[in-house]
């Protein structure tokens, strides 16, 4: 069990969606986090990783066999279900509609990225407000820092991989520097944290 301060626990109790952002050097850890998430996770997960639209990766299929939660490529206008992770498809931004369904969008790349982590985090914060939680992992650019800031401002919970343990620290370090991060966790702590996420039941 990872001991968490009461204000973090309070935020976890009202969490309604979890956004995972990951880029260069973070993929293995992301896999471990997804594997650690319990099948009773009371909310959905939006996973945004930077990947090249040119290569069909079958990533979701490979992960689905390893994880207790559902793993899917996000489909347009699909409702977000609990205990399911939706991956932003390569070449599309992933947005959240006020009715808590997903939308895909081919508008301009952000930080040269589509999907962009900032875009999904901002959109999730627009809809879920303080019920948004996010984890940002290793990466070589600053995508996610602004998004974490939006979630922070909306009253949500922002967690960054400890930049000292990130394969490429630029992305989590940028988020920490911008000031939107509540909690910095090492790789092993992130796994323990993920395992215990169904322990916090919703309380109004």
């Amino acid at each position, binding site marked *: 069990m990872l001991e968490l301060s009461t204000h973090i626990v309070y935020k976890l109790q009202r969490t309604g969606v979890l956004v995972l952002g990951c880029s260069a050097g973070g993929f293995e850890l992301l896999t471990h986090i997804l594997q650690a998430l319990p099948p009773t996770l009371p909310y959905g997960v939006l996973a945004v990783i930077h990947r090249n639209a040119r290569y069909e990766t079958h990533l979701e299929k490979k992960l689905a066999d390893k994880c207790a939660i559902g793993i899917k490529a996000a489909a347009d206008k699909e409702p977000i279900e609990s205990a399911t992770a939706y991956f932003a498809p390569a070449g599309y931004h992933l947005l959240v509609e006020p009715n808590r369904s997903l939308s895909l969008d081919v*508008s*301009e790349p952000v930080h040269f990225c589509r999907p962009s982590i900032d875009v999904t985090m901002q959109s999730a914060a627009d809809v879920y407000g303080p019920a948004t939680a996010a984890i940002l992992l290793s990466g070589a650019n600053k995508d996610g820092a602004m998004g974490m800031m939006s979630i922070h401002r909306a009253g949500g919970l922002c967690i960054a991989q400890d930049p000292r343990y990130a394969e490429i620290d630029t992305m989590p370090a940028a988020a920490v520097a911008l000031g939107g991060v509540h909690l910095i966790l090492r790789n092993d702590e992130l796994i323990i944290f993920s395992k215990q996420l169904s322990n916090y039941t919703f309380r109004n």
Partner: protein
Amino acid sequence: MAISFGHIEELIALVDNVYSFDLGGYSRASLKRRVSRILTIYDIDFAGLKYNLVNSPGFFNKFLIEITVNVTEMFRDPPFYKSVREEICPYLATFPHIKVWSAGCATGEEVYSLAIVLSEQGLYNRSFIYGTDINTAVIERAKQGVIDLRKMKTYSDNYLQTEPNSSLSGYYTAKYDAAVIRHELRKNILFSTHNLISDGVFNEFQLITCRNVLIYFDTAFQYKITELLHASLTLFGFLCLGAKETLASNDLKNKFRIINKTYNIYQKIA
């Protein structure tokens, strides 16, 4: 400045009242991003936006131009074009006249890509391609047939992935930083404005592409638009949606058979 979904609903109502223009079926998440962008571009707040919409003639058109997402590419999703060549063209070849409609064509790159495929299959001379979009500014650009030369590198890569037997550079002339689409490729193309929500059927087509347009609408309007596309197709004509767009309703699914599951190519059978 931060705006809320409440502001978006207010805006939808205002545009409906003042201009009888229906934005109600558009994705709220996308509208919100676009409206925030407009506020930044024009350096105004939400009240300023409403003021301009009501009081500045001509501003509504500028607003419409920015509210839509017009990002496009030549040969976007190369395997899709390969499938058009290999799975659709043999059918099209059996028609004496081939009418093609690219609905939501943005700046025309998709239209020119289709023209290239048709011409390489020896079908262009009996084809006519209509490119339509709601956005007047992108239609004007499409008509010019001028593409940023820097983008041609990516487009050539896309094109090569369709495994063609020629090179993209044969279809344009480079002038300074512009690629000008050759006349032979433009002669059987017509660009014009058309609103998929409020305008109706205007012809009967053998092939319709409506790619990366439906994602900007809610499911009810997606249905409405696909019904219009169905009504605009000849029997055994083809409907091509975007790589992440499928026919949602069973009712419509029964009227098509699937030609390509990955790239959402359908043939009308009823």
